[in-house]
């Protein structure tokens, strides 16, 4: 069963498996009982169901494990259907799945599969508790996103799980908040603004940040640490302080641009917000590019120079392709910083530069509407896609580095 521990004995049914599964069942019973305001009855029912399940599945030892798990899930779903309709089916299936998994996991002795055979029960307990704690950490990080996505399909105009939603009836759901989001100027103008501001700000941060990182990686630059600290500071200084400073810095600058160059107010507004966001993005680019440069072999630039390439050609033909993954992931961070940013744009921008987070911020305060949730769901999806790209690029870069000599 395991490399570490080839001969796992099945634990004693009545001394170990039954009490464990009963305790596990008690947790679900308590939660389910709470919904019906009868936590204690639920607790006892959970203990009994757990114990019976443990004994029942032990009798069926010959069946493959997956059959036991899905069988339990199906049985629970049927019971759920009797008591709670469609919602009960889903709830029952989920509870049954975890109960079935847990029972077979405990009952077959698999819980010892990951640890060496000389471990004491206490060590085994700690090993498995540790894994459960890790799983819970992930759960609590991800879980808050799920109700947001779920509620965004609400058919009502409030942040409320209606009874129709909970019992999975079609009339409780609608795409109207997505239509609201996609079909109204109120949201499309901010989206357009975000899509104007974020890419340009990213472009500026990436160009300046990459150049700064390359410069700062040269050993002959005086005061490198100090310059680095200054360039990184927008990431460390509380945003509200940077924002206030930027407000008073950019206001006269904007006035000057308008008065002396004849630029119109809207254009100047975009320039101000883009520059402010570029400043916020630069530290991310510097950090990722600096990290990539650590693995960059300087003798390659010398070799290029030796063959007659000028520094600009060397940069674009030799250095840039090798540090590109770092540049791109820095750029993605800079993009997300600008795309998610609300404090600075509230200070520096005017209503014409209203970005998506700004609209969400005011929308949440003035009219609690699930359109915000629809927008959030779309943004989360976009963010996940972007981060997946970063991760894939990082893997690619690691693979390439592993293959390159030295």
């Amino acid at each position, binding site marked *: 069963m395991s490399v570490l521990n080839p001969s796992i004995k099945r634990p004693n049914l009545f001394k170990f498996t039954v009490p464990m599964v009963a305790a596990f069942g008690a947790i679900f019973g308590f939660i389910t009982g709470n919904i019906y305001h009868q936590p204690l009855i639920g607790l006892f029912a959970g203990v009994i169901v757990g114990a019976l399940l443990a004994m029942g599945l032990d009798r069926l030892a010959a069946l493959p494990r997956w059959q036991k798990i899905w069988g339990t899930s199906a049985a629970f779903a049927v019971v759920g259907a009797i008591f709670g309709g469609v919602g009960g089916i889903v709830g029952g299936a989920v509870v049954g799945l975890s109960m079935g998994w847990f029972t077979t996991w405990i009952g077959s002795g698999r819980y010892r599969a990951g640890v060496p055979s000389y471990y004491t029960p206490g060590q085994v307990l700690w090993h498995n508790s540790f894994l459960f704690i890790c799983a819970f950490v992930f759960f609590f990080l991800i879980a808050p996103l799920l109700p947001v996505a779920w509620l965004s399909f609400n058919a*009502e*105009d*409030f*942040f*409320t799980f209606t009874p129709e939603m909970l019992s999975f009836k079609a009339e409780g759901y609608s795409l109207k908040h997505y239509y609201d989001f996609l079909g109204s100027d109120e949201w499309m103008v901010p989206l357009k603004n975000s899509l104007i501001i974020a890419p340009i700000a990213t472009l500026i941060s990436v160009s300046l940040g990459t150049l700064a990182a390359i410069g700062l990686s040269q050993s002959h630059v005086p005061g490198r640490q100090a310059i680095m600290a200054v360039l990184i500071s927008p990431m460390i200084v509380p945003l509200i302080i940077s924002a206030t400073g930027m*407000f*008073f810095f950019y*206001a*006269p600058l*904007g*006035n000057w641009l308008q008065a002396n*160059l*004849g*630029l*119109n*107010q*809207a*254009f100047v*507004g975009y320039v101000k917000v883009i520059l402010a966001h570029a400043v916020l993005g630069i530290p991310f680019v510097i950090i990722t590019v600096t990290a990539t440069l650590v693995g960059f072999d300087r003798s390659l630039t010398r070799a290029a120079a030796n063959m007659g390439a000028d520094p600009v050609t060397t940069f674009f033909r030799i250095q840039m392709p090798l540090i590109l993954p770092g540049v791109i992931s820095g750029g993605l961070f800079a993009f997300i910083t600008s795309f998610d940013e609300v404090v600075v744009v509230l200070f520096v921008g*005017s*209503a*014409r530069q*209203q970005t998506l987070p700004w609209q969400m911020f*005011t*929308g949440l*305060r*003035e*009219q*609690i509407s699930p359109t915000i949730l629809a927008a959030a769901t779309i943004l989360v999806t976009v963010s996940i896609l972007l981060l997946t790209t970063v991760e894939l690029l990082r893997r690619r870069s690691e693979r390439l580095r592993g293959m390159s000599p030295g």
Partner: protein
Amino acid sequence: MKLVTKLMTPLAAATAIAALSGAAVADDHMSSDMTIVSWGGAYQDSQIKAYADPYLEMNDGVSITWDESSAEAVAKMRAMNEAGNVTWDLVDVTAASAMRLCDEGLAMEVDHDEILAAAPDGTSASDDFGDLIVSDCFIPQIVYSTTVGYRTDLVPEGTPEPSNICDLFDLATYPGKRSLEKRPINTMEWALLCDGVAKEDVYDVLATEEGQEQALAKLDTIRDEVIWWSAGADTPQLLADGEVFMGSTYNGRLFSAIVEQDQPIGMLWDAQVFDLDGWVIPADLPEERLARVKDFVKFATDTQRLADQAKYISYGPARESSAPLVGKHAELGIEMAPHMPTDPNNAQNTFLYNYEFWADYRDDIDAKFQAWLAQ
């Protein structure tokens, strides 16, 4: 060098375009765009439908940008003024904020008869708006009220639905959470009223130290059951969730939750507190922008436009001459008059936000109230 030129070309082109479009503005001595600040939500929608859209239809080439910043209008106008970069052209604020902005010189003083249209029968604007012109800078639009909503399905069986403001403090008859605004205004008045103080004496009592203690002591009796709100959208959301049984909010929000969203919510009109909302024009606007704003305000506050606004939201028009023109809801087709806070049936027992009292005592009572909250 090549790279630099490449980068510069689109930038230069953008600059040229921007400069050109900037030059087009000068025609007609009115700027072609306005930034109007309002509250967002259903209220801003009513403004857009009742006067902004019709105005844009009449004036080709004009555009309006909406900024939903009325909640922090005073702070933002101070900051903009300090930075010398006022981007707003017209700001929707409550009367109390208008008074503050006027005192600080951030809003422009206006001659109401000169810049606003007279009523159709020739009554001058200042007579038509009457007492509601509470400040030289303030151009009234609507009368709204702060009142109390409750969940109809959570009323205990055999008990009549709440109808009196003091039911808010009656935990024995109407158990359940309450949501109240996280500031003393309205809340303190209601507390005194329900502690046996006569309506005409409320402000005299509240002016004294003992009176303030009395109001807080009354609030102490329900304190454990109170969720404090700070944005107008909170109470309707809490009521829709069933998280609170009763809560105070603006009457238009309750109208929207009850009539438009069809939630199991009822509302009281007892001891509703009237307040005013209207426009102010920022001080020292450039001439062209000011000309455009004046043109818009004259149109947006005329008798018909204010009456039209009531088709979209249940707030009373500030002009006396608009009241008879209030018609039916634009989409639902129901008569709006019975949903107006100013309707005689609803206005049997009302308070008018006492501007003078709160201007004098606000800081003091605010400090006490916040200290009490923090206890």
